[in-house]
């Protein structure tokens, strides 16, 4: 039995795009209410792994599991009878490039609630406000909720995407290099937000930026060539890596 503190349990997960194997028997337990960072060189499979958690990889033709399983609350999310929409409502996701819809700020945040079913207007108003407050965006946009989302700055748009992802009160939040397209100022703001959000959500973040990993993650996983090389508390990984590959990567010898 897994301890109640495990949010996602990964067992021997192997994954392939068509015939190209990208993940090789990855196993790890992602703790709840903490920030877990995936680091590693480009193409090491960290994004793919992250995208397995809400099965968004299903969209890509030819992508398929070749072995192992992912358990959320002891339920294998690759079961045939899983309610995929419900799963994705429970596991939110923020992407590398901020991608708000061509709709108003309000409609962006309300989107996930509307697709889940009809919601009362004032209830919706509350949820939108809360989500925007949680994403530290409310004060900046409260006067123009019905203006197009494209009028916001890059950092604001990314925070809007975060608000959109948490509007449904998910349990887990996946972030795929959320700051890759942002300037340092906006990046700092997002990182601050991540630290705030981990009180409520389990966060898994993929990042290229090792400083970012040290700044905001509790656990760090280093991946290389589709394999999990080392996984442990962030402090330990960065200060006292056990694996020589990890050491080489964090000291900048390669990658």
């Amino acid at each position: 039995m897994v301890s109640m503190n495990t949010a996602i349990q990964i067992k021997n997960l192997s994954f392939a795009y068509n015939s190209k194997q990208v993940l090789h028997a990855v196993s790890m337990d992602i703790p709840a209410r903490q920030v877990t960072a995936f680091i590693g060189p480009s193409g090491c499979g960290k994004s793919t792994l992250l995208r397995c958690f809400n099965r968004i990889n299903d969209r890509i033709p030819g992508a398929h599991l070749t072995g192992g399983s992912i358990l959320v609350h002891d339920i294998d999310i690759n079961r045939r009878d899983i309610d995929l929409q419900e799963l994705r409502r429970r596991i939110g996701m923020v992407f590398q490039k901020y991608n708000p819809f061509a709709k108003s700020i309000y409609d962006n945040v309300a989107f996930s609630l509307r697709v889940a079913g009809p919601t009362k207007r004032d209830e919706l108003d509350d949820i939108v406000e809360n989500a925007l407050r949680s994403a530290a965006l409310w004060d900046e946009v409260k006067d123009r909720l019905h203006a197009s989302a494209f009028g916001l700055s890059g950092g604001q748009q990314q925070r809007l995407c975060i608000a959109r992802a948490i509007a449904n009160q998910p349990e887990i939040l996946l972030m795929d290099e959320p700051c890759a397209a942002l300037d340092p100022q906006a990046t700092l703001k997002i990182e601050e937000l991540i630290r705030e959000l981990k009180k409520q959500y389990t966060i898994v973040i993929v990042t290229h930026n090792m400083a970012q990993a040290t700044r905001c993650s509790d656990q760090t996983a280093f991946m290389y060539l589709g394999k999990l090389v080392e996984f442990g508390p962030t402090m330990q990984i960065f200060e006292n890596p056990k694996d020589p590959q990890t050491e080489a990567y964090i000291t900048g010898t390669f990658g």
Partner: protein
Amino acid sequence: MPQADSPPTEQPHRFQKRGFSGEKAIKFFFASNAGLTIVILALIIIFLLKEGLGFFPGYQRELQVYRIAGLEFVDISRKNLTAHEQLTSVLNRAYYAEINGKCAHQMRRSQEASALFNAYTDQTGPTRDLVISNSQAEITPNPEMLAALRANFDKQKLKALASLPATPHLTANERRDLIESIRTRAIDSTDDPALVTALAEEFAAAREKQAEPLQAMRATIDTFEAAGSELSSLVSEMTESVTATKEKIQNADILEKDRKTLLAAAASAKDPAEREKLTTEAHASLADKPDVEGPIQVLLERRPDCIKTHAALQQAAAGIGSQLPAALSQPEAARLLKVARNTWPLFIADLAKTHEEINDWKHDTPVPLTTAISSFLTGKDWVTGGEWQDFYGILPLAIGSLMISIVALIIAIPSGIGAAVYVNQFASSREQALVKPVIEFIQAIPSVVLGFIGILVFGTVLRDLSMLDSLQWIPGFPIEERLNIFTAGCLLALMSIPTIFSLAEDAINNVPSAYAEASEALGASRVQTTFRVIIPAAFSGILAAILLGFGRVIGETMVVLLVAGNRIKIPDFTSGLGTFFQPAHTLTGIIAQELGEVPLGSVHYRALFVVGILLFTVVLAINATAHRFVNKMKH
């Protein structure tokens, strides 16, 4: 230092180009080819205007002659006469629709039996005639040949009997007997088979019986018809005199034009003797000013006559209107009766107004240019090459074009966009590989082939469908004309589906995949993602696709020329949705049909160019709007 004093030689640096370079010439060559597109566009505009603009003054003169000669005056009365005729025809149609509707069963039986017999005689007739003409007593028959002919006839007979049309309203026994009687009938018999005659008599009897209760209506219609005879003879009398006047004026116009040509030639002639000759000729051909005042005064003297006749007709019509039957039992008859009842007060009101119109009419009011323009743009008649008066009103053509486009778009928009959404969002890659080439192939099909298909295949299929008893609830069925607005619209839809499909598919494809990914990551299903995120994001692109499809439809020529039925008349909107099953003519079709037949430089010729200018402007405006949407999507 003498060297320092000498001016520096103009020696350019090695990297600097000298003089005229071949590169520049090449660049200029390519640039001028690119400029060719501007030249072509300019030429199109210039030449359309050059040929077209002369139309309005020419038409103005024609309308002026129309007035001076008094044709306009006669048309005041003629308008009412035509209305009277139409009303009579509607009443007659209602009358017969009532009778035929009541004995529809007998009518169908009779029609089917004779259709079957006719199908047989059509096929065997020629051979039969040959046999008979060869076996006549006057010519010594050649027994060998006669035998061959008879064998031939028997063969044809068998073939014909094998392919007889269906007769759903005859009993199996009746059909068998009928076929049997055909099989056994003598080769030289001229009588119709017994059943055909019997059914025809049965039908005639049924009609007579059904006509019995409608005698009052018949009498009413006949009285109404007779009431118009006086106006009719009045109009035809006046017609004769004004036509003669018009001819005189036109001849004078032609002479005047010739004289001007001669004078112009004289002015440019180099040889003085030649110039002298041409000038004399020109002066000699000076036309007599035709006498228009005389005939017009004679015409105007008939005013009281006209007014009296109209008043009489008005009185008669007012009396008859109340005698019409209250209701008819057959739906078609009831509809026609309702049409008649609705137009009746309008007809009477028009008659009442005629009095003033006749008195107010003046033959010497000049026709301003604006009248020519407005009667072109809003004229309800496009009448050309007639003996009476040519009118160039584009309303019937524009309405035809528009209605056909509406039908086409109603079909093409849902199917084109639906297919685009399906192929892009839901189809498997194997389905895509099937659907896309098929639609691409439809795009490559020349429009004349589609027109051909419309005439020989689709039109016939549609008409046969419209005859089915089970489809009679559709308004306008059974259709009278195989080629009509609906047929043309369907084919144009097929033609514009590829345009709309491929542009809409592009627009959907251009929606960043990040949108779809984000939407699905938020728990939206595939269908929700498509309809809530992707289609709204591609909306302006899809709108552009629709507009460009519209531009293509309205500018298409061959399909409408072949399939629209080419009747230059504003459709009769009283038949509701059935209007779409009437034939029409179009802006594009009229150019294609008439340009080959008109004299160069005539008013009619120029009118066609003005129609071309109109088309050009409309289509360019539509396309420009579409491209604005496309650009909006890009940013």
